[in-house]
């Protein structure tokens, strides 16, 4: 049986885009799970309608499993859900107005639900996280040092890390290599060799740009909502 996951992020309150993605998924064979890797909300539009839909899916919707992202982290911190921390990262990068704008886009009735979202999912041998095992704001791209990518995979001991923070779509495979090390202590010296495990980091995109992961074949397909050219090309329609 075909098993495919749809991976979405960065909707930023955009219900219309979410609707387009849901329509696409209805036409795609074998999609069994929809994972939304954070940034459900953003500062530029009211997010209540999207949050209502995610919490109460339409009967025909593929039911979403959501985690929190960078924007949720900022909102929850500013609203007192993160101890003494506030939305410092947002304040530092975009100023006080951006913090105020974010607070105004989400009705407080949604806060408890947002606060209940997890940092990430481990499915099979895959980690699904907004940023990385290091931080929700960890911005991994195809340009990030492979040493750092390998570290983020190693911290969770997974073979694939699906990440969304960069908003980019990419599939970077670690295909080989190794390292030698020598440890000297009071008992003497010992040599160690270690090979690079075959692992991948996948950037899933944001907004209308989403990813289908074929679990059986380990293939990723980068799609754009309602993009007929792409979906036909991938043989999904």
């Amino acid at each position, binding site marked *: 049986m075909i098993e495919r996951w749809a991976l979405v992020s960065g909707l930023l309150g955009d219900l219309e885009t979410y609707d387009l993605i849901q329509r696409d998924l209805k036409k795609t064979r074998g999609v069994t799970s929809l994972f939304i890797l954070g940034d459900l909300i953003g500062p530029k539009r009211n997010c209540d309608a999207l949050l209502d839909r995610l919490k109460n899916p339409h009967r025909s919707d593929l039911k979403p499993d959501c985690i929190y992202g960078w924007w949720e982290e900022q909102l929850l911190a500013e609203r007192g859900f993160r101890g003494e921390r506030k939305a410092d990262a947002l304040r530092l990068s975009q100023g006080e107005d951006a913090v105020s704008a974010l607070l105004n886009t989400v009705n407080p009735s949604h806060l408890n639900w947002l606060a209940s979202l997890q940092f990430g999912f481990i499915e099979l041998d895959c980690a699904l996280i907004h940023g990385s095992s290091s931080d929700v704001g960890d911005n991994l791209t195809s340009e990030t040092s492979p*040493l750092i990518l390998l570290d983020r995979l190693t911290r969770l001991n997974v073979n694939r890390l699906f990440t969304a923070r960069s908003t980019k779509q990419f599939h970077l495979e670690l295909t080989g290599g190794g390292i030698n090390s*020598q440890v000297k202590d*009071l008992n003497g010296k010992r040599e160690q060799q270690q090979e690079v495990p075959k692992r991948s980091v996948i950037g899933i995109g944001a907004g209308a740009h989403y990813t289908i992961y074929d679990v059986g074949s380990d293939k*990723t397909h980068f799609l754009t909502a309602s993009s007929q050219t792409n979906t036909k090309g991938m043989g999904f329609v």
Partner: protein
Amino acid sequence: MNHAIISCLHANLPATEAVLNDIDRQGIDTITCLGDLVGYGPQPNEVVELIRKRDIATCQGCWDEDIIDGLNACECSYPSQLAERRGHLAHQWTDDQLTDENKSFLASLPTSLRRDRLLFVHGSPNSQHEYLLPDMDAFAALERVDTAGADILFCGHTHQPYVRELRDGSIRVRLQNADHDCDQGEELTLPMRKIVNAGSVGEPRHGSTNATYVIHNDATDEVEIKEVPYDVGRTCQAIVEAGLPKVFAWRLSHGFEFAEQAEDASHVCER
């Protein structure tokens, strides 16, 4: 030039005095301390004052941080609830004993020190609570040194001294992206880096009761691990007399932590 690196003094004055005397005998006048001046041991004020008097460059350890900021580590930093209770007891006792002046000194310590290509930290560049064990994943170990922009990373925290050289590394990658939908393969050659763990002056856990520290020659990059015997019985007696958990004295008199080794020592407290 030779310089000495000491770590994890843990309020053990006889051990600290013995190590400093050993360093002095060799004519080494540059000493760097990687923190944990207090905790577990019975002479926190005396050890802090000795480091202050000698004006030894020091970075903050996890115990130094916790004494200032309150207990920062969650229970998952301890291998058992019993170990956690003992740790909390030692924390409370140390907090009661330390003078305000010595607490201010601990609060003023930086989390890292840097001299050119040498970086000095307590645990890792990421956290004072992270353990860099000698057999940890080699790529992760290299990442800690390289991302911090250092050639040699000096750390402590594990109480086990070692020198680890990471070399001849490479990673091959293949990229597929949305724009081009094509494969691009390339190979990254990794730099050679070194991790030097100074062990522990005041609470060794390498299987011997001797205090340990390291000497690094910054011209040749050679590292020597030094062991220094001291009057362990004197410290053990002071632990018992202070009312601290007797297991701390037992541990000190055996040089290892048999019952309380963390299963996941690389775990970093996120709280």
